[in-house]
């Protein structure tokens, strides 16, 4: 589904080069619930950003469904992110001036659906994350767990082919973290949703089908956990 070949990413914050990824080659398969794990600075988030078309690699290729993303211009990448990808960030990344319903509607509206269709689709997905009673609230009026569930609903409403989650539980307590992970588990098990999630919490391992461990910008090991 997504294949990377010899992917590198080097940052140049000053005169010194900082290599974040050094030749990553691996594949995300359809239906994976893949965990990207490793110590801080190992390149987990950088890899997620490259896979999610939020950043550009220094070298190497990323193919999505056998299509090299290097051929895409900025508009195509934007459109691809809108229609095919979903994102969940650790700080929820909701639009502060929009209500819960409007935050979710946003990406549906961007696809040109009618307002009724947008509302219908958004209500439906918000009801699956248990937020039907919070539709008119602004993000600041919600708890962290609720905000993250809104972010999940927003990421799911366009039925993406892949969901990227960058430490979605980093700001949540254990109860809310578990609720979010259970939500991902359900999406993956019941709807076959492909999910790539960055985490450094050991107990999250139990949810992943597969874990790619990164160390110093390289794959340390690729562990299939379906048997566990």
């Amino acid at each position, binding site marked *: 589904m997504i294949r990377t070949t010899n992917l590198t990413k080097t940052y140049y914050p000053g005169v010194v080069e900082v290599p974040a990824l050094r030749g990553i080659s691996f594949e995300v398969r359809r239906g994976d619930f893949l965990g990207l794990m490793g110590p801080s600075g190992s390149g987990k988030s950088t890899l997620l*950003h490259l896979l*999610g078309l*939020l*950043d550009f690699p220094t070298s190497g290729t990323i193919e999505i469904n056998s299509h090299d993303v290097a051929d895409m211009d*900025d*508009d195509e990448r*934007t*459109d*691809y*992110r*809108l*229609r095919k*990808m979903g*994102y969940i*960030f650790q700080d929820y*990344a*909701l*639009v*502060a*001036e*929009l209500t819960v319903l*409007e935050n979710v509607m*946003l*990406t549906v*509206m*961007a*696809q*040109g659906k009618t307002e009724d269709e947008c509302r219908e689709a958004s209500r439906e997905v918000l009801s699956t994350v248990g937020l039907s009673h919070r539709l008119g609230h*602004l993000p600041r009026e919600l708890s962290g767990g609720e905000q993250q569930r809104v972010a999940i609903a*927003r*990421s799911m409403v366009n039925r993406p082919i892949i969901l990227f989650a960058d430490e979605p539980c980093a700001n949540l307590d254990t109860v809310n973290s578990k609720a979010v992970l259970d939500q991902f588990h359900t999406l993956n098990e019941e709807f076959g949703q492909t999910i790539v999630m960055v985490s450094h919490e050991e107990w999250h391992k139990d949810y992943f089908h597969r874990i790619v461990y990164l160390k110093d910008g390289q794959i340390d090991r690729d562990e299939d956990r379906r048997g566990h």
Partner: protein
Amino acid sequence: MNETVIRLKLSFFLGLRSLRRGSIGSLVMTVVIIGMVFTNMIFLPSVITGAINLFVEQTIEYQSGDVLIQPKEDVEVISDLEDLLARVNRAPGVLRAAPHNNIGGVMKFKGSRLAGSVIAIRPRDEVLVTGVSGKIRDGEYLGEGDTGVIIIGNYVAGHKDKSEDLMPSLGGVRAGDSIDVEFTNGVVRTYRVKGVFETKSYMADQSVFITWEELESIRGQKVDEATEVLVRTVPGEDAEEVKLSLTGMGIQEQIKTWHDLLGKAFAQVVQSYGVINSISTIVSIVIAIVVIFIVIMIKTLNNRRQIGILKAIGIHRTTITYSYVFQVILLAIMGIFFGMLILFAMDRYFAVYPIRFPDGDIRPAFTLADIVTNAILLFVSSAIAGFIPAWLIAREEILTAMRG
């Protein structure tokens, strides 16, 4: 649905909510500033237009009438006056013609001497043509056939304390006083001042009037000539049309509308005022652009992370840019509306309490066209000023923007 329409709809959706749920203080401040800028764009030019209008009105009302007949070139007077007046008064569109005959003289009052011209008029005609009769501030206007009396302008009368006068005067003449006039033909007469008029026209208030009969008495003969004839047209008649009628009647004298009379000098004055108006408008627009640019720049910088998030989830950068442009457009509409309210309130106020200038009371004058033109100018400037910072931030790389 067309991609552009989708983006515009979404921009409006985002922009409207950002305004509704953003800082009310910032919104009010921006609207007030735009409103003030709009008021400023209209107000100064409206005062200048008011001054020009006043100058034109005063010229017509006190000096030229709607049409002015002057002697043929190289001739000092209009002869066969009675014949001319009879023809002019029969011409279509003419309400009345009033002859003037200017004679030089030196006026004396209690040691003050003032050289100037004394104008002989026919009061019965004059009241139909000029507005001086309605501007007597002390005493009375001339009556038909009056002799031995004179009416003088406010500036000629002056004040006892001459430091209060804007120009040389007779030093505080009042109705009932006597002044001596020494005419250029050597005749010296003493006149009782029947009235002092104050038109607030700089030129008119320097005038002195006697009756035609008095002139004939000074000359010692019937006077059938004039230095000029002022013509008042019937209300609603075009002065240019009347001029054409008079020319068509074979009148050989120079016939000029008030517009011809003001001529090039007036056009230059209007042009100079136009330059002042343009400078004022440009300064106002620059202020508006800078304010809106700063407001939107601060807003976009504060929302930088949010802009990054929007781009990350697949919202196109033009949608984001336009959402800020929409906000500016809405702010501009509110600001312009607020500015209009201020302007109409000022218009009402100045209708009752006009601005007092030495040349008269000026009521600022603006038209619907002025409002529309300036509104469009401000609108376009605001949109550009809002577009640039939003465009700059929306072009940033996603992760850079998301890091704030």
